[in-house]
């Protein structure tokens, strides 16, 4: 057995020994992934998984290193990128991925990606036009 495998076994015994906790928290993550567009909060997550809010928050942070809210935001931003790339308007995208305010969507999107949603969409459309296999080659006049 390699050194690396031995280390992983050690980590498994130290960190991942509690299968009940791990099953709960994996279920919460999956639930967020499948319902990111809904109005999710700690109350609804804890009710759905029969654990207290405090316990859920602690477990999620322990096993994923971020809070459920941060994870939900990351998923929503990733999904919004796909929708913007596919041509959905910024406003429609905002509500389609579960944000309730255009302002918070735009500021979070910019904080996570470095550019505003509208600028992101323009950039993607531009690059798609440049590399699309059916696009006409640009000619210099």
């Amino acid at each position, binding site marked *: 057995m390699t050194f690396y495998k031995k280390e992983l076994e050690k980590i498994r015994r130290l960190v991942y020994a509690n299968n009940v906790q791990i099953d709960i928290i994996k279920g919460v*993550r999956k639930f967020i992934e499948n319902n990111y567009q809904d109005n999710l909060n700690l109350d609804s997550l804890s009710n759905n998984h029969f654990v207290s809010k405090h316990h859920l928050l602690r477990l999620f942070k322990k096993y994923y290193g971020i809070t459920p809210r941060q994870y939900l935001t990351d998923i929503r931003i990733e999904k919004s990128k796909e929708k913007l790339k596919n041509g959905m308007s910024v406003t429609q995208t905002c509500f389609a991925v579960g944000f309730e305010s255009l302002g918070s969507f735009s500021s979070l999107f910019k904080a996570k990606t470095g550019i505003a949603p509208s600028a992101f969409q323009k950039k993607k459309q531009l690059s798609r036009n440049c590399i699309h296999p059916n696009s006409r080659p640009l000619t210099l006049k």
Partner: protein
Amino acid sequence: MKATVISIPVRDQAKALAFYTEKLGFIKKRDIPVGGGNRWLTIVSKDWQDGPELSLEPGPNHFEPCKVFQEALKDAGIPWTQFDVQNVDTEYERLKDLGVEFSMQPTEMGTVKVAVFDDTCGNNIQLVQGL
């Protein structure tokens, strides 16, 4: 400040480029001759072409400590770096069919599933799937 380039030391850049593009599915982004047959050679993920570039750099051929470090990690089974995948089992089967050798089969580690393969250029690389 942005993290834009991640280096992977390789013994043979041409062989590495073939492996990373033809088997793993990355796309060549920059290929600039830098003298002595060496290249500034970078690749990007097919689905994230404006994401970080992987630099396939020939450090082990020119700097002995780099070679020693790379060999030590390889022998210990430690991955040089890791790539996220949607499904480790599917990638494992796909790469096995392409002749890629794994030192660790898909293994659950709590909230992730991992597998480790040999990139044929001196490194172990880990595949990771969030669970």
